């Protein structure tokens, strides 16, 4: 299946004088038959990337290749959108409201002048795979959001596209249908072997689907790598915060006999860090990135009989200021005793606002960034 290559793509919107650079020198390559993710906050330019690949926008500068064929270059579309053989699932699914679901899926096939029998058998096949047989003759407005989404996927896949584009396809679904939809899309992509690109602001979409990810922030590519690599070793602060919730705190590095200790505040210290990268850096002040799930919260009374691995090191005493339930855990906002430091942590147990807790951090998961440029200090 088709391999996509973006080469120094820049996209400028607006008139002269009021120009807005949506993409700035974006380059990456999408391997054939892979599931590729484009992750970014809203306004970062990720939808523009997708629209340029689809042919709905023309790159102001730069080149776009499908395999070795140049399809768009320097403000010209060489292959128009309707002949790129791309299937696309829009954020709002963009189904045709006046046609039945069947006719929606048949639309790209009718345009291609397939025979009625061929269309019928193709739709039956897709309806079987996607589980939409029962609602195939209803209109999009008469079925649930999850079903509409499946119809949109079926329509995008009907013409056997070389490339499947998914633009925030799950953002309009509730949490349960989201999981179903993700696994369905992944299975379908795998079995058809089609190259797929998903654009999303939600790291969980990307992590559950993509094999390789490009992180986009403010129109530039922050990092390209596998999801695991990105999560554990984000190149800089911007990439790290795009990938999910993370606490950034300033700290002073102090060398002592047992390794390094980090002084985050007068009463918040992390001791015994074995981390060579820190010694090479002349700066003694750094930024630390801590993900909420790399923190462990314990009510003070229970700390005496804790059993933990040695990667967990104490950070000190904190006071809970608020707690929200999210997906099986509590997201707890914590303050140190002088209320100078605020940290969000995940907790399995109920923590009430005002409770005093002991905080532990997984030191292997700590991420260190330079204070001035925000670049990752490699381990």
């Amino acid at each position, binding site marked *: 299946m088709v391999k996509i290559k973006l080469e120094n793509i820049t996209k400028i919107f607006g*008139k002269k004088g009021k120009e807005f650079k949506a993409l700035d020198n974006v380059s990456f390559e999408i391997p054939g038959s892979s599931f590729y993710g484009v992750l970014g906050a809203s306004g970062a330019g990720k939808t523009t990337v997708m629209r340029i690949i*689809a*042919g*709905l926008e023309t790159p102001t500068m730069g080149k776009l290749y499908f395999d070795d064929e140049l399809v768009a270059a320097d403000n010209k579309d060489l292959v128009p*959108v*309707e*002949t790129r*053989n*791309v*299937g*696309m699932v*829009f*954020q*709002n*699914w*963009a*189904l*045709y*409201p*006046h046609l039945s679901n069947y006719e929606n899926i048949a*639309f*790209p096939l009718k*345009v*291609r002048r397939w025979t009625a029998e061929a269309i019928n058998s193709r739709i039956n096949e897709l309806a079987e795979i996607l589980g939409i047989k029962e609602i195939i003759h209803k*209109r*999009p*407005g*008469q079925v649930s*959001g999850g079903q*509409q989404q499946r119809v949109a996927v079926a*329509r995008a896949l009907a*013409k056997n596209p070389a490339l499947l584009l998914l633009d925030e396809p799950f953002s*309009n679904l509730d949490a349960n249908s989201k999981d179903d939809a993700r696994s369905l899309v992944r299975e379908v992509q795998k079995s058809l072997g089609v190259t797929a690109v998903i654009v999303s602001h939600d790291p969980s979409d990307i992590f559950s689907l993509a094999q390789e990810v490009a992180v986009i922030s403010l129109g530039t590519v922050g990092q390209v790598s596998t999801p695991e690599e990105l999560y554990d070793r984000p190149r800089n602060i911007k990439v790290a915060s795009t990938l999910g919730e993370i606490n950034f705190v300033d700290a002073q590095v102090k060398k002592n006999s047992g390794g390094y200790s980090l002084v985050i505040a007068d009463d918040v210290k992390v001791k015994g860090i074995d981390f060579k990268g820190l010694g090479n850096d002349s700066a003694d002040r750094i930024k630390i990135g801590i993900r909420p799930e790399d923190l462990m919260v314990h009510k003070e009374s229970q700390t005496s009989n804790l059993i933990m691995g040695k990667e967990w090191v104490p950070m000190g005493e904190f006071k809970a200021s608020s707690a929200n339930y999210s997906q099986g855990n509590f997201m707890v906002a914590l303050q140190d005793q002088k209320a100078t430091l605020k940290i969000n942590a995940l907790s399995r147990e109920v923590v009430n606002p005002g409770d005093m807790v002991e905080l532990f951090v997984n030191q292997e998961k700590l991420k260190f960034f330079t204070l001035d440029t925000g670049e990752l200090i490699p381990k």
Partner: protein
Amino acid sequence: MTHKNMGHQIRHIVNNVVLIVLGALWLIPAYALLIDGLKTTSGVLATPVLLPAAFSFGAMHIVIDALSRPILNSLLYVLPVAVISTFVGSLAAFYFYKVTSFLNSTIFTIIAIATFVPYQITLVPLIKMVVSLGIFNSTYGLIFAFLIFYLPTGALLMSIFIAVLPRTTLESARVDGASDFTVFRRIVIPLTLPGMISTFIFILIETWNNFFIPLVLISSSSRRTAAVALLSYTGGYGTLYNESFAAAFIASLIPLVIFILLGRYFVRGLMAFGSGAKG
């Protein structure tokens, strides 16, 4: 009955009363046209306008004979004008919606201004143009003249309806492989059908009722349009009231019938639009 229910009931009754009163007010002219058109010449002079008198089909009969040709003349230019203005206007509106540029917004502004120009001030150049094209005193001349004034109207009205279409729906059709014209035919037309029908009805009625342009562009009486022919019933020396009422009734019947027939599709189109995508 609870208090809340009572309020609901009262509002329902008030709504209906207001609707009935307004409906009756609007029906009074049509009622007057009908009953006075069905009076005899002496009956129409002897009875008040809103009261019925002895029934006679005489005036109606005379008027139908006299007006059948002008009504046909009217239909011959009104229908092409309304159809072409709506269709070409939709194409233009679709283009303006699709391609946004400085040039296009300038052209669009000119179109909007064109719809506000009173056609009377263009009279002399219009007649000269129609004469030099060799279509003076013909249906083609009328179609030509009315298209000048109602193509912009069609484009303007349709661009209001087309602006409601979600852009992604059209883009999705492009990604599906449809050409611009296929998108227009298979997506834009069905989705803006209610708008197209209202535009069609609006232009049809405006054109049908237009008196001035056919008056100056048609010189032979066999080619007179319905609106112009109506004038002959109010003479300078006296008016046959039953005949002029009957004529007005007959002449307004055709737009009325078209409106009633298409009004149903209008509602159906709106419903199709309402059941559209949730996103």
